[in-house]
């Protein structure tokens, strides 16, 4: 079920009303049933994959806690292999077989593995990572193994963050299911505000920009460099509004039920370096990789860093374009760390430290452009298309913007105006949306809130368009 669908608009009030109307002891069961329903609306039979994952990690958690010495490690390895195996089977089997076939074909061997005709279970990468974080934390002794199968299942299946995160640690989420939760006006109001804010990002900005971006990237051969540059900038905006919009709705939905999920974004496009960008973009995934992979690698820092970013690229999708995207970010990171001292000296030489605003703006612009450039392989369908787009972008001969787009130009202007509003609000904002209020007296605040709802209802694109990160 999509957050921006009519179905969710009917599902959520039913769950919320029921949640605050039933006794505490049944609340977990209601949330679990609602989460199963939420997931089964996509492809019902894939709930079985999730149940298998839950059973494996639930059992592994208990055994790891009881076991001693090497057995603990063996059970952890077994659990991780099961998780990664499941992910690999559904997500990477066809990718691996296609690459093996190409490799053997280059060697003139007729070795072909048939492709699997299975769809990727929605959000599989997210819930396998969440499950793995549970067994790792139990292994590390930071979390007690959960004995209540229903509660553990709810930890994996909790519907607000089921299909696209944030990837929660058990220490943050599991205990919340046991806590007594009565209705609270402030949490409900904050939750609803955040849901509206997320819908604004998704339906008014992301989905309207998607029309233009899909058109240009869908026929990249037909458009010149100028159109592709504009489409790449717009894709940067689209993916941020799409994913952070999803996260806002997820956090808002959880907040109305008085659950607190971790923040996933912190104004990433205002970052002054690639390192800062990764501390504010998809925070739950970045910290997952650094806590569980980077810290466990025995290599030198730059090799580990590159490896983690390649892995992060592969996590996003079974395509070399994502690997290239990860490699670009890994390269940016390594170069930025290696050149830190040189850049500091250059700033001193140019006396840029006397103009902090100029320096900050330059850093933000440079970071944004590096990130936007890496979106070319992220959005392109193949490496050859990536190359063709890059050639067009850096071929400075044709700068005329084709003005006869087939897409909805009014929609594009609406999205750009809304994105400007978003930029201003984010710039002024010091904290997450949910925990702040507009300054001013209640009537003014309410006018602003209602205006926001009206903008979403009037100018939003409600076509139940899927979120970009659902495919991962």
């Amino acid at each position, binding site marked *: 079920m999509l957050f921006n669908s009519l179905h969710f608009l009917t599902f959520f009030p039913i769950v919320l009303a029921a949640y605050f109307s039933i006794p505490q002891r049944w609340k977990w069961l209601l949330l679990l049933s609602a989460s199963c*329903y939420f997931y089964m609306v996509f492809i019902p039979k894939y709930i079985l994959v999730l149940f298998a994952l839950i059973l494996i990690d639930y059992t592994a958690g208990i055994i790891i806690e009881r076991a001693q010495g090497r057995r603990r490690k063996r059970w952890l390895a077994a659990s991780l292999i099961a998780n990664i195996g499941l992910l690999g089977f559904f997500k990477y089997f066809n990718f691996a077989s296609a690459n093996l076939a190409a490799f053997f074909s280059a060697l003139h061997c007729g070795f072909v593995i048939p492709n699997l005709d299975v769809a990727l279970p929605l959000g599989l990468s997210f819930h396998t990572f969440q499950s793995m974080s549970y067994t790792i934390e139990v292994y590390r002794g930071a979390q007690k193994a959960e004995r209540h199968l229903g509660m553990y299942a709810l930890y994996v299946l909790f519907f607000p963050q089921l299909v696209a995160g944030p990837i929660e640690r058990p220490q943050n989420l599991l205990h919340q299911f046991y806590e007594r939760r009565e209705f609270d006006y402030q949490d409900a109001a904050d939750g609803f505000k955040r849901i509206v804010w997320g819908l604004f990002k998704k339906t008014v900005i992301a989905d309207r920009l998607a029309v233009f971006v*899909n058109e240009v990237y869908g026929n990249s051969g037909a458009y010149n460099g100028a159109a592709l540059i504009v489409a790449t900038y717009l894709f940067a905006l689209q993916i941020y509004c799409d994913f952070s919009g999803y996260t806002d709705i997820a956090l808002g939905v959880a907040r109305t039920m008085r659950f607190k999920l971790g923040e996933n974004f912190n104004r990433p496009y205002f970052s002054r370096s690639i390192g800062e960008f990764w501390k504010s973009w998809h925070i739950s995934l970045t910290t997952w990789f650094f806590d569980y992979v980077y810290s466990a690698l025995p290599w030198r820092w730059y090799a580990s860093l590159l490896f983690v970013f390649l892995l992060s690229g592969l996590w996003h999708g079974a395509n070399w374009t994502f690997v290239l995207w990860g490699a670009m970010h890994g390269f940016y990171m390594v170069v930025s760390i290696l050149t830190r001292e040189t850049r500091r000296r250059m700033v001193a030489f140019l006396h840029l430290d006397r103009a902090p605003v100029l320096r900050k703006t330059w850093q933000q612009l440079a970071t944004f452009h590096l990130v936007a450039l890496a979106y070319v392989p992220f959005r392109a369908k193949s490496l050859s298309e990536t190359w063709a787009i890059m050639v067009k972008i850096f071929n400075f001969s044709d700068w005329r913007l084709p003005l006869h787009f087939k897409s909805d130009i009014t929609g594009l202007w609406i999205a750009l105006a809304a994105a400007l509003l978003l930029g201003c609000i984010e710039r002024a904002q010091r904290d997450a949306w949910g925990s702040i209020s507009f300054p001013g007296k209640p009537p003014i605040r309410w006018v602003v809130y209602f205006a926001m709802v009206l903008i979403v209802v009037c100018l939003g694109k409600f076509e139940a368009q899927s979120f970009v990160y659902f495919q991962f």
Partner: protein
Amino acid sequence: MMDFNRQRLLLFGIRGLGIFSFIILLVAKCPYARVLNSLCVDDMVYGNTYRDAKLRPFKVRLPDPVGDVPAISDPKRPGAHRLFFIGDCASQAHYGMKALVLQLSERLREPIYYDHLDDLLNPACLFQEEAPHSQAPGRVLVVDSVEFALVRRLSKSRPCPAPVSAKARPFESWAPVVWSNKIINVLFLDIERRLHFLLTNSKLTAPFVESWNTALFARFCLLPASEPMVSLAPPFLFSSTETSPILSSSFYAPHDDALVLTIAKNLEEISNTLRSQYNVELIFLPVPNKFTIYHRFVTADRYDNFLPRLDEELRRRGVRTVRLYEPFLRSQEFVYHPSDSNWNRYGASITLEEVVRAIEEARR
């Protein structure tokens, strides 16, 4: 005290909304509830663009269908007929006219075996139960397909499924599977579409949706996603299936020569199988999209001549076709309804003439 009251008020609102949403979900999902409440008709057939768009300037009163859709003949015994029709445009009863297949039957004064064209169906499979070479001459099969579905239906070769022995019991027919599929269908599937349909067509909400959509169109030129292109003079609504740049079914989808060759090759294969094994002459009837004929009212973009190119290739390969593109284009009267993607009485009459001529030629 103030906070306490606000808290109670909001909780009361949430509970009320929950109950209301539950009723809506039940009504949307349960056909009996819809009928009992007579909220809306259960008409989700493709075509009626006003029904989806709800834009007042495009509201046109369409005449009611004349005559019922004929019952499908016994699907197990097509062999008793001489004329067969498989398609999606011809078998439906449209506004103010009989289904084309009924008109054709009356005109030729012979019964017609007809069936709906399934996306996965190879028309030659219709005859696979028959003994080869045992049939009378003059048998003709007309296959019609709307242009936007051509690529989906015919760009891949479709082998006929192996006949299932009486003893073999396919997995899908096991009772637990049948029942779990039924439950899944009732609980999970198709809800979004039904809710949208209910919202745009129920007597309670349709007037509001119409006012809202019309205001958005008037103020911001915003169009509903289902009909992203319109022409104001004449007032035509065009469906996204035919116009969206990102859909493979649309006017803007690339139809390169390789695709045309693939479709023509698959049709030639079907035609040869029908001719050599079952003594049936195939007549292929591709029906142009409404946007293919009237895109000039909306855009300066040029048609890539997909249908004429396909027609040329099919004729070159000896497959009989009915060419509607040029007669529709030449027609002085509109051949499609303004607020529907299906042909009107005039379009159907042109098609009828062309089909009759093609059948007579095939039987000669």
